[in-house]
């Protein structure tokens, strides 16, 4: 059997399975690689069914060399993920031309399984996982076709393969959950394992946060241990900007890493896990202020967390934070940095700050005066502010007066510094959307926010959010509500809370859409947690939650085998037990009898079908014809010459339509 030529119809199954296995790679690899594979399949089809030219061994060898050269020219190496997959796919395309024996086919199908696995190296989305399941079913169906060319049509092969895979899933889950995971890799990952992404910028230029806020992409998700704090306290600290050049704000790159956390918590701690999306930036947002340093993070003196490398794939970390706090003293450089202003800052700004400084008795009053100024002087919070020129702070404060959080924060800090109060800009995220489906919070890029911190001698750094003075809805209700209010043309800061509630009430369609979105997001998060991120740490957490504390290799393996054995025993019982099968004709006849019994005509155990029909005809002459027809049909199907499936189907129809 191994060397016998294979039925060419099997070839079609193989080509179809191959197409499904290779399809996801078309998003990742250069198109010509996919084209080579497709051409190989088409050419072989042509050879088999259309009598096309069949290349000889020498031609195939030449083509192989050509492919090797082409792959090398594309990637400049033959090692690594991309060239490896490219070689596997193109050479398999070439292999189509010479598949002959059962062994060739088996090897081909095994290569398809490998190609399916290869697609996971480019991404592990839910979609890809689903597709891979189909592709695996197709390859398995082709395996069935190869082993059993007769007797099963395509649908039955697919059904068989599907049924077997379905039975394999519980076993797979046991092994998947319990197979001991290691942290780290066996050997170095190829350099091309990750690719580029976008995230929160390192600096704040006018418009940069607004630009970010247009994206509804998810920045991170948070699960709180316990009830989440109210929305207005959810200030996610991203990075702190101290250097101001008149237009934009930069981080102070010179600050040294501090090992010790130096602030005094004033309320209960909040613990939570953050699942941060890949951003290619090192910032690790944490609730203002984080008290713990997650693994792999640096804790800066400005209370921000920075990952040791740009975050190129989803990152999970746990943090404990305190939302009320008092921080310590500033050293001289910090103090100076928090007061520095560019020389070209507009004179109107300096004059305004000086005026407040004279009128007030302390820094807090100056800050209050600034907030009052925003509130009083017809400032507008808007998601679509006008563009600003060379001196944006001056222009914003005295001319346009329409701005977004970054304008307010920037102007506020500039005013504070002009008034001699150490201050700085903090960017991060504010609020989030509570996903009730999974009881976690979704924070999107659109929740990006900028606020200010001023330093008071007796309290340390104090958060001041000037946006709150203009648009308290932004803080209380979140950016999504602001967006919706703005869409309805409602001026922010002007409405009573009932009016706002009314304006924000969801229609049924929005309600369904929102909940669907939540469930979908939850599915994605669960997928991430159980598939993409299921490594050593999560496995330990999972096993602990099962009450297994001693997680040694031997214990896991033992559990794994016991679990698998149990499942197999159940399957063996289900698959191999002798079925008590009832003749289908008899089953239908008994159904007919049940109908009659409901009408009071019960067949005695000794009574034959024909006698019974006679007796019933006496009681219900109106049904005589139908009953006689069914009885006669039954006798013919059950006791007569063997009949086909059609006859039985007709009988079934007859019984199904019979009504007493």
């Amino acid at each position, binding site marked *: 059997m191994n060397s016998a030529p294979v039925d060419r119809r099997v070839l079609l199954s193989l080509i179809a399975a191959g197409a499904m296995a290779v399809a996801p790679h078309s998003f990742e690899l250069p198109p010509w690689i996919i084209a080579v594979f497709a051409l190989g399949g088409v050419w072989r089809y042509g050879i088999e069914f259309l009598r096309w030219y069949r290349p000889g061994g020498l031609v195939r060898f030449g083509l192989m060399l050509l492919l090797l050269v082409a792959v090398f020219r594309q990637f400049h190496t033959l090692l690594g993920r991309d060239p490896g997959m490219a070689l596997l796919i193109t050479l398999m395309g070439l292999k189509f031309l010479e598949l002959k024996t059962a062994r060739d086919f088996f090897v081909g199908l095994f290569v398809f399984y490998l190609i399916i696995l290869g697609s996971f190296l480019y991404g592990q989305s839910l979609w890809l996982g689903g597709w891979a399941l189909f592709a695996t079913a197709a390859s398995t169906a082709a395996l069935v076709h190869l082993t059993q060319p007769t007797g099963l049509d395509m649908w039955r092969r697919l059904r068989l393969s599907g049924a077997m895979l379905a039975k394999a899933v519980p076993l797979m889950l046991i092994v998947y959950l319990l197979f001991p995971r290691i942290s780290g890799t*066996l050997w170095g990952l190829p350099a091309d394992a990750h690719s580029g992404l976008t995230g929160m910028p390192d600096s704040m230029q006018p418009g940069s946060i607004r630009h970010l806020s247009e994206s509804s992409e998810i920045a991170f998700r948070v699960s709180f241990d316990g009830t989440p704090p109210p929305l207005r306290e959810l200030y996610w600290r991203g990075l702190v900007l101290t250097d101001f050049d008149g237009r934009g704000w930069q981080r102070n790159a010179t600050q040294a890493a501090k090992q010790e956390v130096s602030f005094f918590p004033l309320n209960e701690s909040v613990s939570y896990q953050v699942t941060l999306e890949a951003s290619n930036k090192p910032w690790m947002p944490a609730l203002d202020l984080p008290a713990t340093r997650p693994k792999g993070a640096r804790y800066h003196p400005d209370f921000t967390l920075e990952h040791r490398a740009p975050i190129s794939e989803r990152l999970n970390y746990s943090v404990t934070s305190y939302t009320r706090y008092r921080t310590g003293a500033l050293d001289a450089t910090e103090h100076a940095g928090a007061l520095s202003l560019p020389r070209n800052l507009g004179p109107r700004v300096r004059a305004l700050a000086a005026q407040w400084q004279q009128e007030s008795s302390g820094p807090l009053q100056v800050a209050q005066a600034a907030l009052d100024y925003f509130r009083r002087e017809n400032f507008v919070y808007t998601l679509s502010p006008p563009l600003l020129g060379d001196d944006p702070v001056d222009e914003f404060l005295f001319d346009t007066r329409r701005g977004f959080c970054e304008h307010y924060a920037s102007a506020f800090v500039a005013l504070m510094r002009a008034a001699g109060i150490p201050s700085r800009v903090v960017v991060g995220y504010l609020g989030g959307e509570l996903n009730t489906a999974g009881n976690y919070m979704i924070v999107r890029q659109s929740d990006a926010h900028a606020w200010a911190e001023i330093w008071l001698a007796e309290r340390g750094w104090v958060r001041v959010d000037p946006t709150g003075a203009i648009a308290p809805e932004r803080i209380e209700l979140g950016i999504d509500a602001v967006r919706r209010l703005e869409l309805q043309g409602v001026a922010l800061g002007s409405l009573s809370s009932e009016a706002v509630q009314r304006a924000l009430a969801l229609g049924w369609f929005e309600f369904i859409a929102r909940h669907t979105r939540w469930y979908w997001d939850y599915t994605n998060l669960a997928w991430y947690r159980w598939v993409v991120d299921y490594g050593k740490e999560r496995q330990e957490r999972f096993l602990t939650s099962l009450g297994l504390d001693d997680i040694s290799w031997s214990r896991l393996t033992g559990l794994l085998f016991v679990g698998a054995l149990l499942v197999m025993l159940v399957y063996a019982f289900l698959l191999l037990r002798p079925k008590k099968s009832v003749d289908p004709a008899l089953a239908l006849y008994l159904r007919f009898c049940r109908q009659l019994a409901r009408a009071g005509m019960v067949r005695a155990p000794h009574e034959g079908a024909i006698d019974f029909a006679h007796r019933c005809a006496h009681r219900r002459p109106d049904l005589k014809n139908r009953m006689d027809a069914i009885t006669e049909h039954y006798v013919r199907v059950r006791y007569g010459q063997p009949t086909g499936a059609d006859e039985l189907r007709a009988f079934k129809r007859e019984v199904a339509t019979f009504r007493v």
Partner: protein
Amino acid sequence: MSVAEVVLGRRQLFMLPTRFGLLFALLLMVQLLVAINYGNGLAYALTFLLGSLAVVSMLYTHRNLFRLRLSASACAPVFAGEVAIFKIHITNDSDTPRFGVAVMHAKKEIGRVDIAARSSADVSLNVSAVKRGWLMLPEVTVTTRFPLGLLYSWSRRIALDHFCLVYPRPADPTPRQPREEESLESTTGIKAGGDDYIGAREFQPGDSPRHVDWKAVARGEPWRVKQFGAGYQATVWLDWDTLEVLDAESRLSVLTRWVLDAEHDGMLYGLRLPEQTLNPSNGEPHQHECLKRLALFGLKP
């Protein structure tokens, strides 16, 4: 141990991976290494899914042979030197169809059948009949690779209690020495090969299709063969003792030839063997009885 019927139970069935099963295991190892190295959850999942698939396929492969019932049906007698055709009957009493059930004899596949639920299939096993006497149905095994070809399940060797009668090899035409008491009177009787319809008998493999009673077949009745004949005359005795010059086997061969000729010529013929005598008669059953005596002559019962 030989029996008339064998049901394949758990104790009769074995299983091992095929070469491709081993290759598949290698594939899984490679996949697992990739999964571990990349710490890739989906890669782990696929690897374990395929591994589980192979494990689940064990049950399917086992079930494909499990509780199959093997029996053999009557084998038409043959002459030594011919090929005896045994029919092995595989019955599937379950509701699950069986696929790719191969019957093996002496490491060669002699037939491969798919058996629908609650039905049966036949596999013929051709055995060269070398010696006269009873030819025993050789041992066979039943194997399968269904559904994935990764596993190979086979049965213990099955010896069904079934025999085929092998008549002696007919000798080349040999003139018969007539004996004195042979009568040449014309007797009423039937001679095969004439034009008159003389009845019907059951169909046997090798019968001419022209003589099959097709009308009866169309009516759903069993296959029968119409026989034609004519009146005949002679009575002959076929006698062991007239062949003194030859050894025993040759004598049996010659007698076999004579029986065939006599039957063909429509004569009434009797058979005389040491310590056995068959009175003259004629027709299929008589011929069979004569040939059977010759086939089993001198053999231990």
